[in-house]
């Protein structure tokens, strides 16, 4: 436990030290890269609630990531073109304000998670994996062929959205926003793991029969977990779209779902900082190997394989040892 705490502290330190170094060394791209890692980590923290705590192996989390992205894209593109989203029965205008975009992203992806959960939680095991994948594919194909918001081409936003008092175009300031979100959500996640809900959800994953026998309803617990999980991943999606100033159906693809899952598993399932370690490691590997060879994905595959086969508990597990 202490080793894990030490590791967590080191990770938090790195989240501050890396951009500080980049600022000092005038390496703005390192900040962009770190922002990417932080956003991926946030998405993975979201998935970790469903997957690690709830035991829900969702291969469709890209849906929430993408919905968050499109919440940003749609609102900002309407604001950019000065066209309202809706005129009747009441006027809804686009916006370039991050807080409003976040709110919409969280609500929309949470709602989607609720709907998908209602239907998917009737199944379990492999069927659950596959039905979430199916919902992901539905969203992907819909976004690709729906022309209003760019279809396959996606939506480009020329200027990053604004946050009161900050210049979000400065990489370090946008990084600050993303980092604040990550730390806040990690703190909430930590509280969640220790709360009544966390206790019940954790048990529902391990022994659903017992949870029922004490008068609680596992599917309802799991549904709420999925909604929280989806909402967080959706928030990450909105930030990711803002990082790239761009959103497209790739954010909804099943490979994206796979990648978010990879962050969680490489880092360590159900570990508070697992997603952070996993996303950081992945971005690093992608960037570093990508510079070494055109065929870097072979090596990425090998690394993944080794982690799964021999590194029980992911990076956090390997460094900090088994839980408790």
């Amino acid at each position: 436990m202490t080793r894990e705490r030490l590791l967590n502290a080191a990770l938090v330190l790195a989240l501050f030290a890396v951009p500080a170094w980049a600022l000092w060394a005038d390496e703005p791209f390192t900040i962009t890269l770190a922002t990417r890692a932080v956003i991926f980590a946030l998405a993975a923290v979201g998935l970790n609630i469903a997957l690690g705590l709830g035991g829900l192996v969702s291969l469709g989390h890209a849906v929430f990531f993408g919905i968050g992205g499109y919440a940003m894209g749609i609102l900002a593109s309407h604001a950019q073109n000065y066209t309202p989203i809706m005129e009747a029965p009441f006027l809804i205008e686009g916006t370039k304000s991050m807080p409003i975009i976040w709110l919409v992203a969280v609500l929309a992806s949470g709602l989607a998670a609720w709907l998908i959960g209602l239907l998917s939680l009737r199944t379990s095991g492999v069927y659950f994996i596959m039905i979430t994948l199916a919902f992901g594919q539905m969203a992907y194909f819909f976004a690709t062929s729906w022309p209003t918001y760019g279809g396959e081409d996606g939506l480009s936003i020329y200027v990053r959205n604004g946050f009161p008092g900050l210049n979000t175009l400065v990489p370090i300031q946008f990084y600050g926003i993303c980092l604040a979100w990550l730390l806040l959500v990690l703190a909430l996640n930590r509280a969640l793991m220790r709360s009544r809900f966390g206790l019940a959800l954790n048990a529902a994953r391990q022994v659903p029969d017992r949870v029922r026998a004490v008068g609680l309803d596992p599917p309802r617990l799991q549904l709420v977990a999925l909604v929280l999980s989806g909402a967080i991943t959706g928030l990450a999606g909105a930030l990711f779209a803002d990082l790239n100033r761009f959103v497209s159906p790739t954010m909804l693809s099943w490979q994206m779902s796979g990648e978010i899952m990879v962050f969680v598993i490489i880092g360590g399932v159900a570990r508070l900082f697992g997603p952070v370690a996993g996303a950081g490691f992945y971005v690093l590997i992608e960037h570093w190997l990508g510079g070494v060879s055109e065929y870097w994905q072979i090596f990425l595959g090998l690394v993944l394989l080794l982690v799964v086969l021999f590194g029980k508990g992911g990076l956090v597990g390997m460094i900090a040892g088994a839980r408790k």
Partner: protein
Amino acid sequence: MSPILLAEQVLNGLQSGVMLFLMAAGLTLIFGVMGLINLAHGSLYMVGAFAAATVAGLTGSFVLALVTALAGAALAGALMEVVVIRRLYARDHLDQVLATFALILIFSEGTRWAFGSFPLYLDTPDWLSGTVQLPGGITYPAYRLALIGVGLVVGVGLWWLNARTRLGIRIRAGENDREMIAALGVDIGRLYTLVFALGAGLAGLAGALVGAIQSVQVGMGEPVLILAFVVIVIGGIGSIRGALIGALLVGLTGTLGSVLLPELFKLFTDASSAATLGSAFSSMAIYVLMAGVLIWRPTGLFGARS
């Protein structure tokens, strides 16, 4: 739409369903016997297609190419099983998904490294090119008709294997009670390798057969893989019969959806928008079908009830 065209589209749906069945049968067999969820099954499909294209290019013999595809993919599958997969049987689905996801990356980029980024050439053999006239005035490509035939033969073969051979008895025993058949002295490791190689061989065969009328390229396995998963989930994981029914359902839904939905939208809007809308909805059709089936029957049409 004329009845002849409709009949032809139904044949097309059957044909694509039958090819999906080849993929899905292996997947469902592997899941049923070993409890393994294998995302890298699409890579074996790709291996089959590449092996066939290479051999056909060297020898010009399509039959030889098919045999190589089957054998090559089975060999690759056996290798995959021995090196990686057997370490995953005792793991949960999560580890299996991730490890086989990693295998996809390795296979795809490895193939690209070995064969380059350009699509390979593989064509239908001369003796199956052109069309045949079917009763009722349907003109249908001979090769596609042959595909339906091959699929049915494989289906019957699997049934025979399962119901009439020693291997089949062991496979069914393995599905029911792993410890028991191990206790009876069956080398369970070898049985698993064999089953995996069988599934892989079928995937390779499908890759080669389909590769002749499609593009043999890196990444060709993933779209089929997802469809095959849809198929086995609809059919009920572990059930060969379910895989067949599911494959035909998915094939027919996909084909007829893409034909009929635009026609449907034409009743409401102009031709261009109808084509766009119809295509958008037909691309979602099979996933809607799958979600519908699962909501109605959470373990698929022929899946074991929990």
